[in-house]
């Protein structure tokens, strides 16, 4: 055990000595999540710039436009009065939604002629698009209900009768787990997992490459210390740091920005333990295989986006082709992001995530086995001229 602790001590000193690595291990995960939290702090889109073009300017049209104006989700831009202005404003992003009431609208409706109000919205960004579509549908529902009520009142129905008729069916929609459609609650847990994965791997993957670059790896390979002790000693500080970051990010997002983190603490800890184990072992394995820190950093940097997109966390897995889903299911990030969502957002128990825990445990075990596969006897490879692919890179020496 003393040998393991000695190696761990040596590794920790390296982390503290390299200021950039120190930042990556202890500061950047928190800094990234603080940054992402600021980006998504609003959570819900409000004050959507809306242009209203009322070409009719009648009592009926004003009632309709007022309902949109009164909707707290929209912010009316008063400078838009014509269709051309609206079109231009939509094109340059000054407004994201528009209401157009055609000329003679009131007259035509009173004569039962064909005419309609147009509610347009910017779908070039579907975060805008989906939200505006939903808000607009709600406002349209309100307008139609008001119209029905006033029509029936005009036909001589009493207020009570109108109420009875209109409320004969109520279509209650209850949104579970994220009732306000908060984007932060949806996206931030996955970003936490992605940052831990990315920065964790980037930190651990330097553990062996650094030794290679300093010509010290040979000493480990020649020493009478068992492979598992080398692995454990070098990986231990990173495992502790990754797990610490996992706990810190989970707690801080819950405490400071009210991210919904509920569910079993034991399950959250277990998921974090398995995920941290996988990241540490996988990083060590990569480190034994790549020639230097620069190459390791380059490859790992590019992992996060594809991994995030194919995981099915945002665009549902049901709509992703089978072979990409298969690929995604080979990645522990996919399972961790889903497991974390099920436990912390949906508050589900062990029976709903047991398969995820099993898969993460298998991934952690497999990556540990692979990490332990480095050979203690290696012949130095002789090759021709290599640029940045050998045991060094510019500026390293």
């Amino acid at each position: 055990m003393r040998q393991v602790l000695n190696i761990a001590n040596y590794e920790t000193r390296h982390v503290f000595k390299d200021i950039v690595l120190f930042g990556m291990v202890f500061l950047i995960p928190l800094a990234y999540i603080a940054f992402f939290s600021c980006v998504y702090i609003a959570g819900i889109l409000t004050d959507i710039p809306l242009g209203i073009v009322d070409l009719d300017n009648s009592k009926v049209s004003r009632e309709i436009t007022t309902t949109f104006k009164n909707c707290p989700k929209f912010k009316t831009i008063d400078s838009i009065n014509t269709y051309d202005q609206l079109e231009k404003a939509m094109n340059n992003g000054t407004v994201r939604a528009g209401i157009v009431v055609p000329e003679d609208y009131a007259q035509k409706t009173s004569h039962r002629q064909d005419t309609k109000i147009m509610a347009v919205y910017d779908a070039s960004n579907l975060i805008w698009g989906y939200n505006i579509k939903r808000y607009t549908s709600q406002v349209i529902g309100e307008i139609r209900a008001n119209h029905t009520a006033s029509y029936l009142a005009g036909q001589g129905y009493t207020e009570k009768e109108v109420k009875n008729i209109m409320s004969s069916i109520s279509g209650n929609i209850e949104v579970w787990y994220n009732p306000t459609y908060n984007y932060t609650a949806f996206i931030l847990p996955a970003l936490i997992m992605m940052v831990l994965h990315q920065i964790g791997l980037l930190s651990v993957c330097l553990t062996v490459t650094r030794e290679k670059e300093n010509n010290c790896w040979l000493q480990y390979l020649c020493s009478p210390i068992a492979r598992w002790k080398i692995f454990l000693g070098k990986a231990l500080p990173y495992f502790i740091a990754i797990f610490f970051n996992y706990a810190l990010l989970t707690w801080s997002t819950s405490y400071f920005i009210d991210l919904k983190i509920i569910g079993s603490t034991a399950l959250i800890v277990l998921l974090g333990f398995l995920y941290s184990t996988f990241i540490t072992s996988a990083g060590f394995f990569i480190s034994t295989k790549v020639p230097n820190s620069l190459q390791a950093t380059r490859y790992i940097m590019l992992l996060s986006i594809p991994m995030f997109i194919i995981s099915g966390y945002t665009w549902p897995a049901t709509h992703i082709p089978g072979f990409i889903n298969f690929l995604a299911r080979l990645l522990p990030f996919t399972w961790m992001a889903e497991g974390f969502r099920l436990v912390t957002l949906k508050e589900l128990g062990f029976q709903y995530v047991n398969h995820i825990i099993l898969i993460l445990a298998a991934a952690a075990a497999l990556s540990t086995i692979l990490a332990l596969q480095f050979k203690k006897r290696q012949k130095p490879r002789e090759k021709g001229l290599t640029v940045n692919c050998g045991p060094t890179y510019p500026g390293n020496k």
Partner: protein
Amino acid sequence: MLNSYLTIMRREITYMWRDKGLRYILLLVTLLSLFLFWGTYSAQLLKDIPTAVVDLDRSNASREITDKLKTAENLKITARPGSFAELKELIKQGEVVTGVVIPEDYAKDTALGRHTRIYTVIDGSNFIYATNASTAVLSVTRTVSAEVGIQQLTGSGMQYQQAQEAYRGIQIQQEPWFNPTLNYAFFLVLGWVLNVWQQCCTLASCMIIAGETGMCSWLQIKAAGFSRLKLFTSKSVVHVITFMLLILPVYIIANWVFKIPFNDHFWLLTLFTLVFTISLHSIGALASSVARNSLDATRYGMIIALPSFVLSGYTWPLEAMPQALQVFAKVIPQTWFFQGVNYITFKNPGWEFISHYFIVLAALAAVFYTLAAAITAYRY
């Protein structure tokens, strides 16, 4: 004069080619990501949202609601649980996203004009599913509610046409502009691929100074009194041309094969990308000038490149971010680029509007190059 430039350029190409890791990244990653992301979003539209119907009434009226749900935009009935508890279980397991419960005595209550309630549950844990599902369900429940209302009014003696007028008097048509089918692939694939591409380019451009000063040959270059400007310019030209050669096939495949709309602005987009590439390269040069070695340069470059897409407002709108962050975002070329790409590919903003983006990108490039030059001159 030109020969010396060409010699350095040839040397830079050789160095980039011999850097195996970088070569694979530059040649393969952007193109592969296009196919991977297109494959992921190949469904394009979020149709067939898994829906469960709990029909506790089992009457003709309740079956009509089920039929409406079957034909509703974006919904697909995949389960018919016998009870609410079963529905709850299906939602917990993620088997369905939406559940509609038609209560017992629904037909009887509506026939007698008594109040009844159609209960709908939506799993809100996935924002994209939830927003689409709620809009679809809302539309169905409104139609049903209107039909029942019309029935009641005709039952109370009103003419059918009048009753219909009461419920459908106001016609409001929703019209999504710029992406009329709400196509998710059109919205995101190009953005994500460009994000991967700009990361690859950052990796390469971060080598421009640290990659040179970190090698022993730097002493020879210095001793020979070789012009640094000439060295830097020649290397930069190679980088920028390489980056453009990487993205052009992506644009061609995206537009011609995958039919991602460029709004007939292919050449404008290419020109815009060229200006951005120079601007992006300037950030890489700046990171490279302050770094101790190539590894640190790569790290600094990626610290900017990785979160830049999120900050750019391409997905979560810039307007919804705090003011301070919006100001910060505008100092980063990626923000202007991704915003500009959205305008060029989807809209028709006009040269007057988009020229502003060109100018800002060029100005940022000038500032970052100047800073990089000053730091390099001071350090080396």
